[in-house]
């Protein structure tokens, strides 16, 4: 599909690039959101990734994996951002950049297994979660509540909410890998 879309864009049909963004945007944003906690920065960097892809579309290798290509561009943008933070940031920003740079190879490996079915699989697995875990996940990711606020609404400490979120993500990971939990 990606070859066909690229061909259409290169043929002058620039609206076809919208279809590329719609098809591969979630994967790019997931990759960036895994690294960056600021979702506005995720949006900015996703835009920059697609601009760079558009500007370099003539370098597209036919038959290549579009998700991997876009993820590579996003990784370059991300590394530039982390380098800037490490060089010019305060101690906290430099520490965070150091943590992310250490984890990044492992994270890149985790994303390599993702494909077009990943999001559908994730939603199916979320349905299988016990109610108390699903509620916490929905409060955190759909309602965008902070851990502190979730804890206040559930009558739990932030540490307890962090544990619940950790377990929920762990179970989702196991479910997506086809393991029983």
């Amino acid at each position, binding site marked *: 599909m990606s070859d066909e879309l690229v061909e259409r864009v290169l043929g002058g049909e620039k609206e076809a690039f919208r279809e590329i963004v719609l098809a591969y945007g979630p994967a790019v944003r*997931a990759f960036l959101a895994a690294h960056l906690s600021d979702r506005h920065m995720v949006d900015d960097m996703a835009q920059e990734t697609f601009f760079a892809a558009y500007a370099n579309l003539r370098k597209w290798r036919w038959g290549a994996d579009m998700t991997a290509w876009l993820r590579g561009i996003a990784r370059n943008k991300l590394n530039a951002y982390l380098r800037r933070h490490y060089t010019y940031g305060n101690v*906290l920003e430099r520490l965070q950049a150091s943590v992310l740079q250490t984890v990044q190879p492992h994270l890149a490996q985790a994303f390599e297994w993702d494909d077009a079915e990943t999001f559908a699989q994730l939603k199916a697995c979320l349905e299988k979660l016990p109610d108390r875990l699903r509620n916490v996940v929905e409060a955190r990711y759909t309602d965008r509540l902070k851990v502190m606020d979730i804890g206040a609404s559930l009558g739990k400490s932030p540490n307890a909410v962090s544990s619940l*979120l950790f377990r929920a993500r762990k179970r989702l990971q196991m479910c997506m890998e086809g393991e029983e939990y």
Partner: protein
Amino acid sequence: MRQEELQATQLLLDGTLSVRSARALLRGVRGDPELTDELAAQQHLHGLLEAAFGPDPDCTRLARLVQTAIEQGRSRGDRPVKMRTERRVSRNLKTRSQQRPVKVKTRSHLRNMETQMLPAQRPAKYKTHARLRNMETQMLPAVPAALPPARRPAFLPKKLGLAAGILVALGAVYFAHQKFFQRPAPPAEILATSTDVTVCRGTAVLPAGTRMLLRAGDRLKIGPAGTAEIALCQGAAHMTLSANTAVRFPAAADAFWVEITRGASHVSVLPQPPGSKLAFISPHAEVWVYGTRFDLTVEQDQTRVSMQEGEVTLKNRRNGRQLPLRAGYDAIVGATITIENRASRKAPALRERPERAAPHAPPAPQHAQPAPAPPPGARPRVESFTLIDALRDRPIPEFDPIPDGATINLAALPTRSLNIRANLRPKRVGSVRFSLDGQQMRRLEEGTAGSIYSLAGDMHGDYHSWQPEVGWHVVAATPYTEDFGMGEAGDPLRIRFRVIDEADPPSP
């Protein structure tokens, strides 16, 4: 994963990590591969959940922004223009709403909206405020819906026409002022000066004063009893000029060099942005710098350049030949360039060979090896402390090193802007933690500029200023093998010293 690491992971994902948690997490991921895998798995799921359940999960908004930007970039060689995101727009709107609570839509605003509705007829424009406003309204559909109907009262055209005319006239005056009449930024500013310093401006001779701005073409002369300190390039470079020194600034405002016609000077330059050039010129040599510290002394037939930090490109003005010069080396530029290793003071390590050197192709100098490194596995240790003159970024010889129990008389020092440097072995370690009087300093010294670890810190070798209070003090420093105070702690050093401020100190 322990509770502490679990908590730190969640804080990292939420973006609310503290320095303490971040340090613990970094220590964990560097030392425990399982924790790294676990953290990566959590981040992976977090990213998927954010993308799947966060705002704009199907990326329609992202696609619209990208598509619009690409469309707008069509008239500019297909280079897409980056759209403003919700954060920037909301920040703009917030700022604007604070400044102007209610705004009636003007004619130009309405015209903007009309053109927005006809994208095909819209001419190519640069990113004006009106255009940005268009983009904002395009991204926030509620705003156009709330606009008042496009009525044009009869009195508006005249007033608006008059206002537009005034604005155009003001703009033309401003442009002409910027273009033809405004003076360029001053090449230098005098930060500190003594009495025996004068500025020659054309035929006038003016006494130099603190905070005096020097103009293009000015000449600064330091008398036998004078000294001066000047800032160049809006503070990016500092020069400390000794007695009997003369400096000339170029007549062209956009030139990027300073000529030291005689005397001695100490130069400190912050790292320059890529592509920028700054040169210090003597009758014999040109020193092209990109962020460095060095001393330059002009003698009768030669110029001596003594490098303290960084690297410069040295050019012989007689024959145009160039050589790179690194920290720790001295160069004498006369008929040829001779480079000496300052540490070993041995015979010339490199001598320019005029008959072989090709112009504009400097040969790589065969610099001597640095001081022998300690055997691998040796614990780092602090050997001594040195009192630093932070104004001139030089050690104060009487206190290099500071002996335990020393008495430092502020009145007898050349400056009160001080700093204390820890001298380490090996010279480069991961980080150094300082404490003064038992209080830990907030920042960790990581030696971003070579191997400088100091109590009050430095910016690329330019020491920060610190003035101790009168009384007894205890300074301690502990080296670590890794950054952020992690890894193995080395051998610390702790000394006591007494600070007094007396013109006539009592004899010991």
